[in-house]
């Protein structure tokens, strides 16, 4: 943004040049704009528009004003989904960041081959893809012969099987755990590179001055990796909001709506209950939430 202001006052241009620049600019933008307006902006507008209608399959839409929104806030399933979504975001974002920072700082000092080996391994679940990974997790969490119950019992931690995905107390936790394994890959890669770029002489100087490892980290490394951390915060937040495949494939929002997220509930409303207007209203709410959150994060980034 600051750039824009600076450039504007730069050289003064002739009117013809301005016109030429404008035409050229839009020509360069054209292909991108076609897709952007056609498949992002237009559906977004339609989403807001339809959210004021009672819209379903095979019937003309009926205008209902804000009724969908009013219903939403009386819909206990939606409120539960909202809560679950926030829990997922609030729990998984900090854990992802801390965990990946810890792993990165542990592996960055290893010999290069080991660093790169571990980096690859932690990135594996990302490339394997959530669907394939989920298949295994479903088996691992199985009530009767899953690996967690098997190991738990053979090591004497559990005295009876826990129905991980079938028990409202554990299901959301399991989802968050799987989400973690599929989302730490990228942050680890980023942190390894950021930590590798930290000026090592400063750290050593501090240590010579008698600073503890922790102090050295906090005072010297942390400020330097701050931009990376912010970026990781943004992407993991967006990722956590989008958590869908795990829920669709593992629990379908159950048991008793304990793992419903807004994302899944939109899908469910649209394709199981065919309430399109209602689903769109939910989409608008979610979009607003994310917009506010991004704005906050953007502000924080700018102020730093």
């Amino acid at each position, binding site marked *: 943004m600051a750039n824009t202001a600076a450039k504007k006052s730069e050289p003064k241009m002739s009117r013809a040049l301005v016109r030429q620049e404008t035409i050229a600019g839009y020509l360069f933008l054209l292909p991108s704009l076609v*897709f952007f307006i056609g498949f992002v902006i237009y559906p977004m507008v339609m*989403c807001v528009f339809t959210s004021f209608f009672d819209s379903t399959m095979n019937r003309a839409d009926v205008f209902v004003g804000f009724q969908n929104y009013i219903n939403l806030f009386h819909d206990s399933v939606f409120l539960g989904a909202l809560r679950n979504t926030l829990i997922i975001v609030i729990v998984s974002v900090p854990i992802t960041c801390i965990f990946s920072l810890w792993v990165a700082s542990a592996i960055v000092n290893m010999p290069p081959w080991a660093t790169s080996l571990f980096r690859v391994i932690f990135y594996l679940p990302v490339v394997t*893809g959530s*669907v394939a990974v989920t298949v295994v997790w479903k088996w691992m969490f199985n009530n009767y012969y899953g690996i967690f119950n*098997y190991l738990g019992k053979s090591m004497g931690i559990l005295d009876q099987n826990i129905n991980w995905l079938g028990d409202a107390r554990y299901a959301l936790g399991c989802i968050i755990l799987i989400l973690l394994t599929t989302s730490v890959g990228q942050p680890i890669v980023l942190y390894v590179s950021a930590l590798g770029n930290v000026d090592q002489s400063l750290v050593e100087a501090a240590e010579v001055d008698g600073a503890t490892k922790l102090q050295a980290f906090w005072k010297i490394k942390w400020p330097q990796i701050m931009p990376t951390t912010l970026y990781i915060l943004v992407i993991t937040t967006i990722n956590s909001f*989008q958590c869908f495949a795990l829920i669709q494939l593992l629990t379908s929002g159950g048991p008793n709506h304990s793992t419903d997220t807004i994302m899944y509930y939109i899908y469910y409303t649209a394709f199981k209950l065919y309430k399109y207007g209602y*689903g769109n209203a939910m989409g608008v709410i979610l979009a607003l939430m994310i917009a506010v959150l991004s704005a906050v994060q953007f502000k924080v980034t700018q102020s730093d």
Partner: protein
Amino acid sequence: MEATKTAAPATEQTKKKKKKVSPYMVFSTIVIILLAIAFAFPLYWIITGSFKTQVSINATTPEWWPSEWVATNYAKLFSRQKAPLWEFAVPFSSNFSKDGKDIIWWSGPQVPAAIRWLINTVFMAVASMILTCITSAMAGYALAKKRFVGRSVLFTLIVCAMALPKQVILIPLLREMSSLNLYNTIWAVIFPIVGWPFGVFLMKQFSEGIPGEMLEAARIDGASEATTFTRIALPIIKPGIGALAIFTFINSWNDYFMQLIMLSSTSKLTISLGIAKLQAENSTDYGLIMAGAALAAVPIIIVFLAFQKYFTKGITMGAVKG
């Protein structure tokens, strides 16, 4: 600059390593190894599981190593459903064909549907990657280097739209695709990916680094806009394009949601969707599912391992500029 920076600490690290081994380091190394085993386990289980017999995969005590290696799961996977290896439709033919479906002018031999799913996925990921890179590089260059009316408005719009999950607009998007006759075609998955403005944003950040004097000089030399872009801008932002390409490739490969909504017939599925369907249909037949999952995972992992360096670089660069 970055290169020198990374090289220096690397040597220092190795030196330091020899100096002392603290108990904390031993502890952390052990934990990291255990974690690594846990992270690699799903993949291990998919691959070995795909070669197990039906009985041993459903055994109540886990069988850590297949007691008997069989290929029946793969045989079943490949014999289940067939689809033509490729199908080329007349572009836009669904708009004027009698039944609203594409007119296929060339379709390949019948092969196991799983192979076709892989081909669909690769096509989808590569096409999204290429289209995104081209459109974003052009748009990002224009946003960074051209002064025109509405630029800042547009840029703000892009930043706002970036954070928005695609899923929010799934219902209107689905209706739009069906009115464009694109529903149940791979393009219905590709176009929203290409429209997503992250690429434009990233390329704008990279394009800021193009020196204005070079562009000025080119203009004075009488170079056309197109020439200026391809000769001067492109070489400078090339690393950025590489990063964006890798980014888009991974994202579209894993974009399960759009695929689920937009694709339905057997010959149109992607590999993740195919596996999800396998799981739903045969939730009991874990061997078959594992074979499908292995087929989905192994090719991309091989690609990843082969281009590991570029992946890492791509991810990091995207972050630095993003």
